[in-house]
């Protein structure tokens, strides 16, 4: 019913109605904070009110299954998170959407994974940790945020590449990780660069799963240490599958303008997010590449 694209829309966007920006996670989370920062920029660029609303549940699947059935006018958009949008359709019988149905507008930022221990922990480097785990199995436990998330994937990749079998304990949200670590319930956490700043004194980051070092964090990358782990939560914006390319491009331009603004940049970097600028084609390509990567890991993930 919705999927018939009307050709009038191709040239005319935005129509005289507000643009919906659906957030699949709870208010106050990183997706929400970022959208709130974008909101004034998008409103200025597109000349229409942008309404941020929420549809929370099933780790985002409810919002995304909703989005793909919405009218393809460009007035219905939703935040997307990788790896969620790739792994859910792969792992679940019926997630309600397919990864291909989410038409990416832009992937605009990433929060890389970090492996951190307590500041008073005996493990000063990644090698210390690995050595201890090999000598005394069971002495190192990793906590992360959820199953089928970037933290989980990074832990699985780390286990695979180091030949270890460290137990991975999933926690419901990123906020639970510092509790688990500082309360001595796990030895290390696979957390994110964001939400690290307030614990800078109480935690030590052993390695970052990004291509380059983070200027705010004094730690090497996994790559420098010989592990090919580049993983993090990538966030972007998507529209229903039949949205015309011209509309997608207008949305992309607006998001890219926000990303390029110095004041915007400054705010985002204090929150531990790394800005990216992937246009619709690049985003699609990036997602396709990740699909192939994750298919290989899938078996290890459900262990």
């Amino acid at each position, binding site marked *: *019913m*919705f999927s*018939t694209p009307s050709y009038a829309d191709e040239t005319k966007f935005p129509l005289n109605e507000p643009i*919906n920006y659906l957030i699949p996670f709870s208010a106050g989370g990183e997706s929400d904070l970022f959208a709130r920062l974008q909101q004034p920029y998008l409103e200025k660029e597109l000349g229409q009110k942008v*309404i*941020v*609303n929420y549809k929370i549940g099933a780790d985002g699947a409810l919002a995304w299954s909703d989005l793909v059935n919405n*009218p393809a006018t460009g007035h219905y958009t939703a935040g997307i998170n990788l790896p969620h949008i790739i792994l859910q359709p792969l792992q679940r*019988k019926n997630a309600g959407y397919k990864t291909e149905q989410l038409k990416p507008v832009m992937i605009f930022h990433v929060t890389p994974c970090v492996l951190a221990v307590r500041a008073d922990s005996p493990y000063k480097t990644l090698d210390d940790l690995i050595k201890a785990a090999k000598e005394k199995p069971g002495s190192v436990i990793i906590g992360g945020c959820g*199953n089928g998330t970037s933290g989980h994937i990074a832990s699985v990749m780390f286990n695979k590449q180091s030949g270890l079998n460290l137990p991975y304990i999933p926690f419901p949200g990123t906020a639970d990780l510092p509790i688990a670590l500082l309360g001595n319930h796990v030895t290390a956490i696979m957390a994110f660069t964001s939400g690290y700043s307030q614990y800078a004194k109480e935690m030590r980051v052993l390695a970052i799963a990004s291509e380059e070092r983070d200027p705010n964090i004094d730690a090497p990358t996994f790559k420098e240490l010989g592990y090919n782990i580049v993983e993090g939560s990538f966030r972007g914006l998507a529209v229903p599958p039949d949205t015309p390319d011209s509309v997608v491009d207008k949305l992309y331009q607006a998001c890219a303008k926000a990303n390029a603004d110095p004041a915007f940049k400054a705010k985002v970097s204090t929150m531990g997010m790394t800005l990216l600028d992937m246009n619709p084609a690049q985003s699609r390509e990036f997602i396709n590449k990740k699909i192939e990567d994750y298919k290989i890991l899938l078996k290890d993930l459900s262990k």
Partner: protein
Amino acid sequence: MNSRFNIDTLGGLSILAIVAFFFLQLGDDFTPFGLFFPERILPILTLLGALILAKGLLRSSGNLKGVFQINKTMVISMVTGAAWALLLVPVGFILASFLSMFFLLMIYIPKGERTLKRALTNGVGSLICVLFFYYVFVQFLGVTLPDGSLFMD
């Protein structure tokens, strides 16, 4: 009437029915983590259901007479409410709510007093009420109440 059929037997059977509802959905595609807890809880629940059933069979307490005193207006309200909930998304908030409210208001008026004038005031009243809620929630509270997909395009 023999009181074998009392609130305890019915309660015990209901619990066992609930157990069956969940047990039949236990799939082999569950991860071990997801299977762990339900596998511990369901046997205990089965036991409790059986105990309640046994209690009802051995010692009859509350007779079923006296419970489920359902009358006509109540059933009509239940059906209307169910229709309201089910039609909310396909028909849209405004239409579904207006029709249900108006219908209920008219049903509750005693038979002899259903005049055209009262119908009109009730209709206007429920329409205003529904529009007010729609306006407040959509405009101020950021809740996108369903517009109804039947009437779009």
